[in-house]
């Protein structure tokens, strides 16, 4: 009987020192805007971009996406709008790089959602809307965009289809 008590004492002791759970997994993170890139000539086909540079309005860091037909853009969580400047890198017939610029404007409302003690909170987005700014540069590349959903809750599916 005494042995049992001693053993259970030890077990409780170890339990008390158990490490707090660790935050992991995409589901616990704030989702990004997922954009699938389609061919404007054959709208059923995804079209790979050689390189796209993305800079948010008012920020200086650049996100680069290379040889992909899917890009992911984060949204600011303490305002209701984020604008992204997207620069497409294209090779000209003479093998020079041509830069083509466009701007996408996202508006939304935010909701903070409790995840867990280790992860804290994540934000999901409601009433999501996306528009392409009227062409301000003389070298635009986006022909049109199509918004798939109003609710941004996960990264699993594309939220926008972009044709170029």
């Amino acid at each position, binding site marked *: 009987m005494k042995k049992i008590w001693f053993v259970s004492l030890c077990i409780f002791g170890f339990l008390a020192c158990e490490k707090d759970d660790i935050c992991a997994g995409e589901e616990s993170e704030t989702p990004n805007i997922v954009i699938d890139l389609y061919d404007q000539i054959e709208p059923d086909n995804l079209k790979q971009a050689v390189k796209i540079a993305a800079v948010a309005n008012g*920020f200086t*860091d650049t996100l680069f996406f290379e040889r992909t037909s899917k890009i992911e853009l984060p949204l600011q969580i*303490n305002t209701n709008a984020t604008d992204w400047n997207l620069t497409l890198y294209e090779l000209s017939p003479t093998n020079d790089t041509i830069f083509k610029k466009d701007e996408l404007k996202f508006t939304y409302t935010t909701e903070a959602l409790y995840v*867990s003690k280790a992860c804290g909170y994540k934000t999901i987005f409601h009433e999501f809307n996306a528009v392409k700014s009227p062409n301000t540069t003389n070298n635009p590349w986006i022909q049109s965009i199509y918004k798939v959903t109003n609710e941004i809750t996960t990264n699993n599916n594309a939220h926008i289809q972009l044709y170029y």
Partner: protein
Amino acid sequence: MKLQQTTMRIFSFIISLFCMCSLQAQEQVPQVYPEIYGLRIGTDLIKASRNFWDKDYKGFEISADYRYNKHWYLAAEAGYENRLKTDDQLSYTTDGMFLKIGAEKNFHQNWLDMNNLIYVGGRYGFSLHSQTLHSYRINTGDAYFDEEMQYPELKSTGLMAHWLEMIVGIKAEVVHNLYIGMNVQLKGLFYQKQPEGFENLYYPGFGQKYSGNIGVGFGYGISYMIPFKKKIIQPVKQQENTRK
């Protein structure tokens, strides 16, 4: 002199723990020791001392047990806790009171006139508390936008929790009627009222919640017994040490 006596008592208690199994019936002196019945009132020294060494904690616990019969004791604890916790992702304060009631069984066979306990028991615990979310950080996978800490100061009141608890411990009489005790508790929540948009992470009397609604606790208490009556037990006739 007093200290020496105390030391002797503790020492003899420990000796009795290890030796009682091997004790053989010896020459019997027909001496009878009464069993003491009474109400023991105490406090948890860990909770009490934490007020001094942890600036984020305020709290206390009053405990009581009453001897029901030879082996069984009715026991209860009540108290108050206020605790601020700052984690990487969030910080919050839990504030409220708790009550635990239950019973415990003494498995220790006392030697001579000693009155010590090694016990196993159970409790039903209940807490009534509030939880205030002071700050949190939004978990974004990438760090493109520097996300600032949010400070909502969101207070959720009227929260509660119910749990069952298993307790194992010892109580040793160090001075006449004064006891020092240690115990460990294993607890399981079975009902709780959660704050909206958040989670109960700490409960008064229960402590921190681990995955699977499990909690653990450790107590180090001091208590005083108010004796009510003494019961004289007729000694069982010792059998002769027969050997074949």
